[in-house]
């Protein structure tokens, strides 16, 4: 026998199901009036410092079908790489957004400020990125991934550097499609499957 460890095991995840929107973005789901507005409508307020960008994409299943029922959340630093609530952070950046696939087309849009590079414990920097969490019916535990940006210096980023198959790095890099416009798709499975994280 040994001394007991007074630690607990994490509560297991379950799928968010087809009606996650009722709980997380009820007005979007047609259950209006319970809250004044849905949580996380925008990660930035007017007057946020930095470049305002738009990222558009879809979430594809293993057959190539764009999910109509996926919901995503994003979390990011401000244009200087400072997370909201930390000393010096831009008060106009909340950093958190909830957005969903369009129920007819499956396309989503995230309008935000382009984040700066973020310092690491022990030194160095992570390249500018946005953390994304994907939930939907059929996804038993929410999928973590990240958006990086075409044109940035990715050398030294600890996460991208850990991807052995360098061809898969591209799945995390949003492609520039115009001024301040990016395209970034999530592929849950199959060819060009997105790199998902355990972090």
């Amino acid at each position: 026998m040994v001394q007991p460890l007074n630690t607990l095991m994490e509560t297991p995840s379950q799928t968010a199901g087809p009606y996650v929107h009722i709980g997380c973005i009820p007005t979007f789901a047609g259950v209006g009036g319970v809250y004044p507005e849905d949580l996380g409508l925008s990660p930035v307020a007017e007057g946020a410092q930095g470049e305002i960008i738009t990222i558009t994409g879809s979430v594809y299943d293993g057959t190539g079908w764009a999910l109509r029922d996926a919901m995503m959340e994003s979390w990011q630093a401000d244009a200087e790489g400072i997370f909201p609530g930390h000393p010096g952070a831009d008060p106009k950046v909340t950093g958190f957004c909830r957005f969903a696939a369009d129920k007819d087309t499956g396309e989503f849009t995230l309008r935000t400020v382009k984040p700066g590079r973020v310092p690491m414990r022990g030194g160095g920097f992570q390249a500018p990125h946005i953390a994304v969490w994907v939930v939907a019916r059929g996804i038993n535990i929410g999928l973590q991934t990240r958006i990086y940006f075409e044109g940035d210096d990715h050398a030294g980023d600890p996460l991208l550097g850990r991807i052995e198959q360098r061809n898969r790095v591209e799945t995390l890099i949003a492609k520039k499609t115009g001024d301040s416009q990016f395209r970034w798709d999530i592929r849950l499975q199959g060819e060009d499957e997105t790199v998902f994280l355990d972090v």
Partner: protein
Amino acid sequence: MRNAPIDLGPLIPRNREAHPVPYDPDYKTSVSRSPRWPLLSLDSTLTEETGPVFGHSLLGPLDNNLILNFTHGDAPAVGERVRVHGHVLDENAKPVPNTLVEVWQANAGGRYRHVKDTYFAPLDPNFGGCGRTITDDSGYYEFMTIRPGAYPWPNRGNEWRPMHIHFSIFGSGFGQRLISQMYFEGDPLIARCPIAHTIKSQGQIDRLVAPLDIGASKPMDYLAYRFDIVLRGRRQTMFENKMEGM
């Protein structure tokens, strides 16, 4: 030189044994929606260790009362009145204070207020189906609702979801984000549910089954169920909680 960020400490790597398998043919939708490649595992960074903070001022007075919040208190929802309460803790058994807990569920007949739900059971004009609260300083939360009905769904030939309430919990870091479901003690449909059984450990399935908490019920008013939630914890040692290279 900017100020050093707040360092809450690295997250304990997720024990995937605690969780459902991503791919489970008995839950058919998971077949085409589960990644085939392994996840990329690495130590948490500031990105996962920080997260959005929601203040108690976010909440309206009826946000945690699903019986009344859809009608703003004008008329109660139909159903068996139930109080659900518990603590949000982390893996170190420390309370998780001031964290947002959101819930959603079907009505007493097993019908969601959603354009995609066409089940025979009627909508309740007085029930929306969502609620939220924020844990107090001890990690405690509670809300009032009605017991949701079981309902059929398309999967295998004759599939029924047990009575359940969906939960979404934030924690203090984005890497702690969790969505799960609470079941009710004694429901025979839990044992037959392929979604519950995407979790391969029976002990972990049991963690989602809230016991009747008769002592927390109110005579002549409501029953109570107790549902404690555990989020990922943080490593806390003086050897590594120093942010360098700023």
